[in-house]
């Protein structure tokens, strides 16, 4: 009686559990608006992986259901009903052999498909464009080597958002300046680690313009959770516009404006680490930043065209306010390019985040930026320290930064 009710319980419980697990896995692909959903491929490479998933997950599901059904049948059928203790049979080898061969055959089939996909995804012959991706604690740097056939006549360097043309086979060449990071845009391809001292290749290709979210997936220390990325696919024409924007020469703010004062603050405080291409000091001499003297990784984001990006600080914070962000993220693919290329206009600028960051960066994002605790790195920071700027300086800087279109 007691046993029977237990059996019933276990049957019901196990059945619902398994149905639940199998069902949720099967349905997870249909979810709305989950930006890192791995079952919503938006490009050729992710599509290939997804095609494999479409073979493997159903097989796993069916096997799971069959095994569970068999288990439940056994639990009920052979419960103790007072029958005699059965003969002590030690098994039948033929059953064992069948049970070995059947899964082996299934796996062989799956293995053949897997093998082909692995080789396909490692292919680099069809590359049309190269982007160098360099990880460091806790942001990504993207630099575009000169590629005249893609309209890139001057090298472009940016961070936070990876911009690339649709329908183009882009090859990322990943490396790292400090620890291992991993580059992952689920909608476009699987992960590939960025390992210091090595260069790893990752194919990217997007079918439609849009914004694709990603996240560093190799544990890389304190702010691992805050090391995000966004891949921006633009139509070929829009991409050409973006390239032109990035190659635009620097224009210093007009004399007498707050922004001009901000430029002075920037030169004194920020250009130690952050490069703005073309910025000149009072004597007209080009200023070259020296992050290698201040930061352990030897790099800090290049801010030349900061306002063309929607995020800052390793894509952790939005540079645009919620409304403008939603406009970009929810834009239809034909409108997306225009929305994105509008950049951070003055009504879109999210000053709150930017000011808080300038006021005290380590309070916003965990970093190794306490000057008293840098003996292991010989005084070099890992992250951006608190610069102790006055509110007045911050006003000027914000005014200046918003001119960096």
């Amino acid at each position, binding site marked *: 009686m007691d046993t029977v009710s237990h059996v019933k319980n276990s049957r019901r419980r196990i059945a619902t559990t398994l149905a639940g697990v199998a069902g949720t896995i099967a349905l997870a692909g249909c979810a709305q608006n*989950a930006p890192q959903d*791995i079952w919503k491929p938006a490009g050729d490479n992710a599509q290939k992986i997804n095609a494999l998933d479409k073979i493997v997950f159903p097989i796993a599901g069916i096997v799971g259901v069959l095994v569970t059904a068999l288990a439940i049948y056994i639990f009920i059928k052979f419960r103790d009903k007072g029958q005699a203790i059965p*003969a002590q*049979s030690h098994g039948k080898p033929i059953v064992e052999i069948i*049970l070995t061969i059947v899964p082996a055959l299934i796996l062989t089939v799956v293995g053949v498909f897997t093998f082909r996909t*692995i080789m396909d995804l490692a292919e680099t012959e069809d590359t049309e464009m190269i982007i160098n991706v360099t990880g460091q604690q806790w942001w990504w740097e993207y630099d575009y080597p000169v590629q005249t056939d893609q309209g890139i006549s001057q090298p472009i360097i940016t961070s936070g958002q990876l911009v690339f043309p649709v329908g183009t086979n882009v090859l990322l060449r990943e490396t790292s300046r*400090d620890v291992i990071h991993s580059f992952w845009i689920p909608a476009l391809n699987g992960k590939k680690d960025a*390992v210091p001292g090595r260069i790893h290749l990752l194919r990217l290709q997007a079918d439609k313009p849009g914004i694709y979210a990603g996240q560093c997936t190799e544990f890389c220390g304190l702010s*691992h959770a805050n090391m995000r990325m966004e891949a921006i696919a633009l139509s070929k024409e829009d991409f050409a516009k973006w390239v032109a924007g990035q190659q635009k020469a620097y224009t210093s703010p007009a004399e007498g404006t707050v922004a001009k004062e901000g430029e002075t603050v920037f030169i004194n405080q920020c250009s130690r680490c952050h490069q703005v291409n073309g910025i000149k000091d009072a004597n007209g001499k080009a200023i070259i930043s020296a992050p290698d003297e201040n930061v352990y990784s030897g790099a800090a984001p290049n801010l030349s065209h900061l306002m063309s990006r929607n995020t800052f600080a390793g894509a952790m914070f939005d540079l645009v306010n919620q409304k403008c962000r939603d406009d970009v993220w929810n834009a239809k693919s034909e409108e997306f390019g225009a929305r994105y290329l509008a950049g951070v206009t003055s009504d879109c600028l999210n000053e709150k985040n930017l000011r808080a960051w300038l006021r005290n960066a380590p309070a916003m994002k965990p970093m190794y930026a306490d000057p008293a605790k840098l003996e292991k790195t010989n005084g070099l920071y890992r992250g951006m320290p608190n610069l102790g700027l006055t509110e007045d300086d911050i006003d000027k800087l914000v005014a200046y930064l918003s001119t960096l279109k």
Partner: protein
Amino acid sequence: MAIIERPEVATPAVVTPQQTLGAVKRPVDTKGWREWLFTVDHKKIGIMYGVVAMVFFIIGGVEALLIRLQLAMPDGRILSADQYNQMFTMHATTMVFLFAMPMAGAFANYFLPLQIGARDVAFPRINALSLWLLVVGGLVLNASWFLGGAADGGWFMYAPNSGPIFSPSHGVDFWVLGLQIAGVASLLGSINLIVTVLNMRAPGMSLMKMPVFTWMILVVQFLLVFSLPVITVALVLLMLQRSYGATFFDVSQGADPLLWQHLFWIFGHPEVYVLILPSFGIISEVLPTFARKPLFGYPFVVFSGASIGLVGFGVWAHHMFASGLGPVSVAVFSVATMAIAIPTGVKIFNWLLTMWGGKLWYTTAMKFAIGLVVLFTVGGLSGVTHSIAPSDTQQTDTYYIVAHFHYVLFGGMVFGLFSGFYYWWPKVFGKMLNEKLGSWNFWLMVIGMNMTFGPMHILGLQGQPRRMYVWTEARAGEGFFNLGFWNLVASIGSFILAVGVLFFLINVVVTARKKEQAPLDPWDARTLEWLTTSPPKAHNFDRIPVVHHLDEFFHRKYEEDTATHTMKKVAEGDALVRAEEDAADAHIHLPSPSYWPILLSVGVGVLGLGIIYGIPMMVIGFAITLFSAYGWVLEPSVAEEIDFEPSENGGNTKEIAPLG
């Protein structure tokens, strides 16, 4: 058993030394706490392993609850980034090295000699040393919480993030030292158990008549012997880098960080089987007992276990599919990983077929065993999905992986261990755990476990990566599969799970207070450990049994009715035990307690801390280690007559001679 025997004294005329070889008077015949600290009895050591592992299970569990609290809501504020990183590092480290391995060690220590009809393990003092080194290693690891912060690089401790620059606190140093000490403990333990199994089986017990639990433990010990040296090398390299300025993993000096990953996973993958195989062994005892049928395809289960162990050494790089190995290596390791699913599947089917045609008795032990079969299948199938390397590059380092290995390790390993608790509790403590509380324990754990780890499949497929101290609303999505809801469900589930475990602890307390003794053969069991009293006497068996069958004990109780092909009971279990008692051997001699294992362990611990705190501490540690090593060397394993206090009525209190 004596390892080295003192030669017979030549002539009666000489004066016998008053103390054994000049060492301290040995702790023979001790009572109270000293009976435990200095014991070399495999059963007491086994119980202490269990207690230690349970304490660390609770510590690791609290760490897990803190993690789930932090992640219940977006932008959690319970823990800082630094604390969170320490928490998940120590949760994994504690659960793997300080709970799972010692708990398997507890079962192995206690039941392996009993199952093969031996009186103790081959090297009793080394057995005690293993235990105490493990305790010291665990203390060193956890001491870091109070001494500047625990390790924060993840249990995989990937270089270069574990280097002195990227992890400036002493946490990783404690981690490296604690694991090295615990590693020595495991290595000693595994050699000990291998020798025990190969040399000390009861007469008639050929390898293919050994219980499956013993078989699985044997496979595990071989895995340990071959994999631990690799991680030890890696740990030594990391220690040299952190404490003495070496540059094995320093990229600026030309190192390749992937070296660490290869070293770690060549150990780390076999380690996965080290964790799961003991539980497979346990349920391979429990299922036949409660199905009243022998294990279906015993040789297949044994050989699939062995082949899992063997192939397990050839699949380590499937943890590195995203690390940038070439496509050919990825393809090879992908296929090898699929291959390992085959023997695992064989095991599942064999367990199901064991129950087929049986007479199933649903005790709590049986429920946990069934729970393992079902939940492990779920984990195994999700495992197959990431043996497909391209799919794995999407899944790895997301919560989908967390879901997978918790189904395998919690649904698999932990359920197996709990099955073992309920099955063998009457054997160890002579009292039955309460079945009603056991039922609560089981169902709460099943519900909690599925609520915690089930939603993680969704979280992972929705792209939530692991090891993030916060998740953000901006990437959570909406609708049925939004991260917010399922993270909350997982967190609630983790507390239900914790309540389930609490029911076990309550059950233990309730049982301990109960007067009623368990019957000698409560489950109508099958193997030799039940052919003695509960709890067993210090010398295990009054008479070393002679084995004729697999499942010897069962076949002493039952005979086949040739007409109906059913089994007929011919003897009662407790009558058989009493019969053994009546035919007891005279002159049973046991290894004697010793101070040295525990003292030596303390010395090694101090020596290790010296690497962090400087040479003076190392000198002290070395002195203690050397001193206790000498004490050990000068002390025969079996006490001399003179070691015992003279008994009041003049005669010897014990008869002393080496055990055979």
